[in-house]
């Protein structure tokens, strides 16, 4: 399967009479976008704001971040099984509005939503402070149930991203990246001497607003399966979860998964990147056992030499991570795990809830309990009403002078477990 990603570099976003891209500027017809999102009767009010890098703006509570992409050639449309029909995606050409994103905010759905600062110390912890953001402020209809509220806002993000990306459809990209994965046997014939490496992507699927969807299927209902890496670049995996902001994989993270991109960089050079094994993180022990048995079995079946395993969230998913690691290692296949830490504010506590001696190659995304003081910023998109209650905040987080003292857990993407951010640690 072969996909070209056409980059259309966006340097600025502005409101305008027509939604279009001109000389690297994305113009947004605000009214048209609001009307599109308001078609969903679950939402009572919708507003749109723009947040640019360096502006004194704080966005909270952030639910999801989405990158605008559009299919130009090849089957299917972005977000298959969700926004587009359930057609297989991941081939042909997809144009991307690079340098901008859609963010969703508004009344809180679940207590694990995030803060994104566009300037100051907090901005250093989130990759999204470097993007030109089109922020949707969506408020639910009176009496709307929590799950319907989450779904309505989730869909609002995808609809807005797809709407903006239409403007990229007929534009010649400045840069084209090509990604190709051959069917297993062909790949082995082409690269007979390279180690076969796959990526085990663990998807958050604990339920109770901790959900991820694969081609529209709730990931807690899948058994581990194999997917071409380029499928996820077209939005085959989407986030529907309110896990702690620092280590939830937003839809943007899934579309731009750095494990996938880095493995592609080395594909055909020093390894043969054969594909992705998708698995979940469920709340029944039997599910954890079944899924980890199955990832190990698929890894063996593919004749792999090594795997990279990434986790999402923390706590009991640490067990899924360790089970995957232990069982795949037991098949004689080398593993590297990517996780993060909840090691207490001083970093002295045990980092993970579970451990095993076969987890001897570990990459961390940082300690989520680290405390940060965020200065008062000029403008808030969304509301500060929830600062004391979102995960990582505490009673008194928001001080009278407007500063916010919180654990970096509240910052969207701060300790991401795909290696999307800059923090890590090295043992000496």
């Amino acid at each position, binding site marked *: 399967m072969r996909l070209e990603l056409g980059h259309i570099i966006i340097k600025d976003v502005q409101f305008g009479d027509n939604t279009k891209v001109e000389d690297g500027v994305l113009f947004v017809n605000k009214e048209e976008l609001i009307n599109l999102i308001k078609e969903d009767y679950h939402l009572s009010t919708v507003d749109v704001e723009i947040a640019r890098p360096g502006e004194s703006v704080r966005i909270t509570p952030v639910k999801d971040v989405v990158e605008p992409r559009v299919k130009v050639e090849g089957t299917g449309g972005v977000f298959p099984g969700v926004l587009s029909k359930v057609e297989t995606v991941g081939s042909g050409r997809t144009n991307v509005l690079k340098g901008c994103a859609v963010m969703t905010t508004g009344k809180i759905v679940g207590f694990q939503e995030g803060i994104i600062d566009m300037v100051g110390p907090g901005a250093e912890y989130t990759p999204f402070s470097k993007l030109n953001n089109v922020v949707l402020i969506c408020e639910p209809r009176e009496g709307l149930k929590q799950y319907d509220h989450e779904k309505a806002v989730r869909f609002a993000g995808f609809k807005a991203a797809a709407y903006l990306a239409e403007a990229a459809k007929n534009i010649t990209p400045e840069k084209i990246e090509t990604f190709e994965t051959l069917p297993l046997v062909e790949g082995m014939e082409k690269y007979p001497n390279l180690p076969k490496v796959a990526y085990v992507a663990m998807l958050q699927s*604990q*339920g*109770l607003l901790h959900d991820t969807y694969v081609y529209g299927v709730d990931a807690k209902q899948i058994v581990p399966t194999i997917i071409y890496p380029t499928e996820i670049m077209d939005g085959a995996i989407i986030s529907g979860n309110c896990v702690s902001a620092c280590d939830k994989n937003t839809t943007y993270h899934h579309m731009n998964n750095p494990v996938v991109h880095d493995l592609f960089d080395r594909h055909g050079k020093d390894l043969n990147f054969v594909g992705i094994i998708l698995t979940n993180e469920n*709340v*029944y*022990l039997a599910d*954890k056992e079944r899924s980890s048995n199955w990832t190990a079995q698929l890894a063996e079946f593919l004749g792999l030499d090594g795997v990279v395993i990434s986790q999402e969230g923390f706590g*009991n998913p*640490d*067990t899924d991570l*360790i*089970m995957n690691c232990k069982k795949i290692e037991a098949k004689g296949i080398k593993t590297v795990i990517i996780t993060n830490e909840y090691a207490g504010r001083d970093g002295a506590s045990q980092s993970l*809830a*579970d*451990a*095993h001696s076969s987890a001897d190659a570990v990459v961390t995304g940082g300690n989520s309990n680290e405390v940060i003081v965020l200065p008062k910023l000029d403008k808030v998109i969304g509301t500060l009403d929830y600062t004391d209650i979102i995960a990582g905040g505490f009673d008194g987080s928001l001080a009278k002078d407007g500063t916010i003292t919180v654990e970096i857990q509240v910052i969207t993407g701060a300790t991401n477990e795909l290696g999307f951010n800059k923090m890590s640690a090295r043992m000496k």
Partner: protein
Amino acid sequence: MVKEIERTGIPVVHICTVVPISLTVGANRIVPAIAIPHPLGNPNLDGNEEKALRRKLVERALKALSTEVDEQTVFEN
């Protein structure tokens, strides 16, 4: 907590959903629970069924508490 209480000489049963974590932290008597969001019950069952399920868990825990063990033991039945 399991280990600290046991250190004083009082036997402890750890009822927990994620048995591997309980094994990692060193509990000696472990009774598997139902699920992480509802360890001691199952909201999908009707009242009587759930009560029976809960009773079974408590009885299993009491049995575990009164059983001599010389290594970490998971009481499945």
